């Protein structure tokens, strides 16, 4: 069984790094990159092994309602691949960036804890265990947001920590009520018991979890902490937070709870659709007014996560396909854009778009990859963002919601508008800037190039033959609401 290693390996690495590191961070860098490569290989290997049926690992061989189980189905392995991949590119990008900022092995130890927590949340099949891993992730995230040691970063981190703590209290309250109602904490057993209970119980539990995990996913009424935290963190961490953390802790957990455990209640789907659409529009409009590059990207994250929620909330096969695809695409191009912002910050020491200018000569790779990422996120045809947004809009029309489809299309135009602004002022402006050579290292450039290539390559996932092997298996897990429960309970 390789499932527990997704948690054990990064956790062990975090502690090994603290033990072996001295003044320099060389060993920490080498160790953490090796670990992320091995996790990526493991997760890709798992994806083709799982194939429709869930793999279950019983901790200490205790049976499910008593012990804690780890579950891997297509959806969770898909999330593990995204986490491992973005973490790998983020580490490659970090090496030079963190040495430039304030070199220390602490960064890598905390980074490994962040990965541990996210892998744990994704792999676990137990509600309270999930809460514990959420807390591990958040602790590491608070510390990493404040890593740069500036006043603004502590302010953002404190705001994030308070919001995160409130959401955790709500989640804990929800877990308490769930336990009182069902006398079990294993997700599959909860689903089984809730079927025989009053539907009102599911609504109460769902409402509390929506408040708790919605805060972590930063959908619109709960978004206030995101722009501060994501724009103040070091660039590779912003990429991790925007690219994977809000998805692993927010979107993934909400999908798991509301589809596989609560069984896709219609009223919550309606809530997802409405909140998603509001997020798309309001996040977009707020992003338009920003001049701080990273703040603009953070608001854009709210807007793009709105598309994912719109797709999920539609509840149809096509809608969920679009949402899952957009989740992958957003992880790729938003991380890439944050790397671009980080590379500009390293080279020019500013994030203000008005102070930038024509960087095409000075930083050709950054300029080119940012163009690719902007085109993908705005939904221009050959790139991946076009296909996922198109699928979500078509799904909305097919589900008989033309108004939402129209609003999503408007949101896409707004996205195009503010990325035009980024390109116009940030990368192709009037004042021609010069930098010394090697301001942006080979590692940073290669991380950006890998993701830019993927922006184009992941479009292939929509080609019928490949789609059936990859995206369709994930959608099948979400759509087959009873499958998760019966597979786990049947395997005792």
């Amino acid at each position, binding site marked *: 069984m390789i499932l527990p290693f997704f948690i054990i390996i990064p956790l062990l690495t975090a502690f090994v790094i603290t033990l072996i590191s001295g003044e320099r961070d060389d060993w920490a860098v080498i160790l953490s990159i090796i670990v992320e490569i091995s996790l990526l290989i493991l997760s890709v290997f798992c994806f083709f092994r799982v194939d429709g049926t869930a793999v279950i690992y019983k901790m200490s061989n205790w049976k499910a309602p008593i012990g804690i189980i780890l579950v891997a189905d297509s959806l969770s392995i898909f999330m593990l691949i995204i986490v491992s991949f973005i973490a790998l590119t983020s580490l490659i990008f970090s090496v030079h960036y963190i040495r430039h900022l304030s070199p220390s092995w602490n960064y890598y130890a905390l980074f490994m804890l962040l990965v541990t927590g996210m892998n744990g949340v994704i792999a676990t099949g137990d509600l309270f265990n999930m809460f514990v891993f959420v807390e591990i992730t958040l602790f590491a995230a608070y510390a990493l947001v404040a890593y740069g040691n500036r006043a603004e970063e502590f302010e953002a981190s404190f705001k994030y920590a308070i919001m995160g703590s409130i959401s955790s209290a709500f989640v804990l309250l929800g877990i308490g009520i769930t336990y009182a109602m069902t006398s079990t904490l294993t997700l599959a057993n909860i689903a089984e018991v809730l079927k025989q209970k009053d539907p009102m119980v599911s609504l109460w539990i769902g409402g509390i979890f929506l408040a708790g995990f919605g805060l972590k996913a930063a959908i619109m009424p709960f978004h206030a902490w995101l722009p501060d935290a994501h724009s*103040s963190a070091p660039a590779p961490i912003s990429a991790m937070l925007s690219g994977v953390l809000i998805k692993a802790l927010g979107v993934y957990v909400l999908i798991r709870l509301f589809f596989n455990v609560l069984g896709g209640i219609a009223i919550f789907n309606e809530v997802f659709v409405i909140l998603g659409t509001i997020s798309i529009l309001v996040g977009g409009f707020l992003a338009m007014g920003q001049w701080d590059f990273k703040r603009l990207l953070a608001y854009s994250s709210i807007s793009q996560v709105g598309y994912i929620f719109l797709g999920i909330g539609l509840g149809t096969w096509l809608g969920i396909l679009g949402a899952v695809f957009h989740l992958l695409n957003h992880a790729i191009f938003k991380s890439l854009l944050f790397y671009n912002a980080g590379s500009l910050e390293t080279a020019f020491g500013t994030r203000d778009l008005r102070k930038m200018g024509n960087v095409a000569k000075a930083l050709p790779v950054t300029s080119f990859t940012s163009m690719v990422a902007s085109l993908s996120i705005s939904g221009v045809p050959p790139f991946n963002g076009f296909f996922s947004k198109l699928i979500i809009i078509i799904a909305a029309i097919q589900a008989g919601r033309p108004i939402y489809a129209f609003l999503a299309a408007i949101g896409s135009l707004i996205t195009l508008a503010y990325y035009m602004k980024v390109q116009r002022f940030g990368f192709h402006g009037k004042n021609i800037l010069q930098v010394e050579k090697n301001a942006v290292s080979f590692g940073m450039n290669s991380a950006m190039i890998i993701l830019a290539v993927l922006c184009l390559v992941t479009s292939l996932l929509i080609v019928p033959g490949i789609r059936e092997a990859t995206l369709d298996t994930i959608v099948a897990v979400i759509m087959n609401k009873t499958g998760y429960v019966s597979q786990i309970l049947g395997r005792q």
Partner: protein
Amino acid sequence: MTVYLLCFALFLVGIYGIITKRDLVRIIISWGIMGYAVNLMFVLFGYKNGSIYPIFVKNAPVLPQTMVDPLPQALVLTSIVIELGNTAMLAALAVRLFQKYQTFDITKIRRLSG
């Protein structure tokens, strides 16, 4: 039922404190109150009137029907440890904020905006 309502009132006191207080330390303490309320609720969920501690002792048979549910107590222990860590984290951040801004007042700590 009254106990649960009082417990929920404590939870609301915590939220009220976080929303209205302007002092960083008071916000942290309000959050602590919120956490205590949730922990208390956990213990109450496992409690049965007139039952005894869930420990098996030699020569004194304890029936499972007559003891309180031990699982919520185990969960509360875990959650208290997590809260300790969280409070320490928040307090550390508050100290660093004080060093940077020379104040605990959140209305004066606003370099981030928009």
